[in-house]
């Protein structure tokens, strides 16, 4: 009967999440303040793009997070399909909206950063285009998660989609890069700006740590919500089927 309990009442994880959550919040708050301070005060302005390059300190970590979250979803989906561990489904489902938010942010900040440089809000730059496709993969995943009444069916179908999507990400990246070189004369100012000077590198890394801490914090909140919602559903089923 032990594994039965694991489905219905994963108290062990709920306690653990309760502990991790405040720590993640603390790390997030600390690193975001340090990161922002460095991004605006210690890091020099870019000699070509001037102050607008400071958008890089939110754009680049967001793009990293977009890819990181999708990888987490793919790994969690593989674990859930192979070892059928219920927490893997819950973590993949909880990660998706956060990853999608970061993907949207990296697109929006990329467009805001590109406007002064290229004069238009959107340029079919290889990186931006791949991130746009990644956003569609996220939306497809979340739409599939929401398309089933039975939570277990939704989890299994989305797990397969996440894996299929993950296998295709490098192929899409390769195709978009190739397509980009075919049609786009090498854009004068590379998105990444001039070579990364250490004083610019540190804020980037600290902002990246801040975003990861934010991810862990919100992930814990969302996973706890999913697990308690599972318990509520079981109570509802008990009501219906006569306890």
């Amino acid at each position: 009967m032990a594994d039965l309990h694991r489905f219905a009442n994963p108290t062990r994880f709920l306690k653990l999440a309760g502990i991790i959550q405040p720590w993640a919040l603390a790390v997030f708050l600390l690193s975001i303040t340090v990161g922002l301070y460095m991004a605006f005060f210690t890091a020099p302005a870019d000699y070509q793009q001037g102050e607008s390059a400071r958008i890089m300190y939110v754009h680049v970590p967001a793009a990293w997070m977009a890819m990181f979250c999708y990888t987490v979803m793919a790994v969690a989906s593989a674990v859930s399909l192979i070892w059928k561990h219920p927490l893997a489904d819950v973590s993949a489902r909880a990660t998706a909206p956060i990853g999608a938010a970061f993907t949207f942010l990296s697109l929006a900040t990329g467009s805001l950063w590109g406007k002064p440089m290229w004069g238009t809000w959107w340029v079919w730059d290889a990186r931006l285009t791949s991130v746009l496709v990644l956003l569609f993969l996220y939306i497809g995943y979340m739409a599939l998660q929401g398309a089933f009444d039975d939570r277990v069916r939704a989890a299994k179908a989305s797990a397969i989609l996440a894996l299929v999507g993950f296998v295709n990400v490098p192929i899409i990246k390769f195709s978009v890069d190739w397509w980009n070189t075919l049609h786009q004369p090498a854009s004068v100012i590379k998105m990444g700006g001039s070579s990364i000077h250490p004083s610019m590198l540190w804020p980037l890394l600290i902002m990246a740590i801040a975003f990861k801490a934010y991810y862990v914090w919100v992930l814990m909140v969302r996973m706890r919500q999913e697990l308690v919602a599972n318990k509520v559903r079981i109570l509802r089923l008990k009501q219906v089927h006569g306890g």
Partner: protein
Amino acid sequence: MNEFLEMGGYAAFVWPAYGLSAGVLVVIAWLSIRDLKNTQNTFEKLSGEKEKSK
């Protein structure tokens, strides 16, 4: 101070970028926490016992 705010003439791009990012992250966090609170309340209402992870 306002020299800083001007962002070397790029204020119209730097501040919206940071503002939007802050906004989106805050909204996602707030929604998630609100959902958690609601679910915990329904759970307590249904099962009548204190939700341990509150």
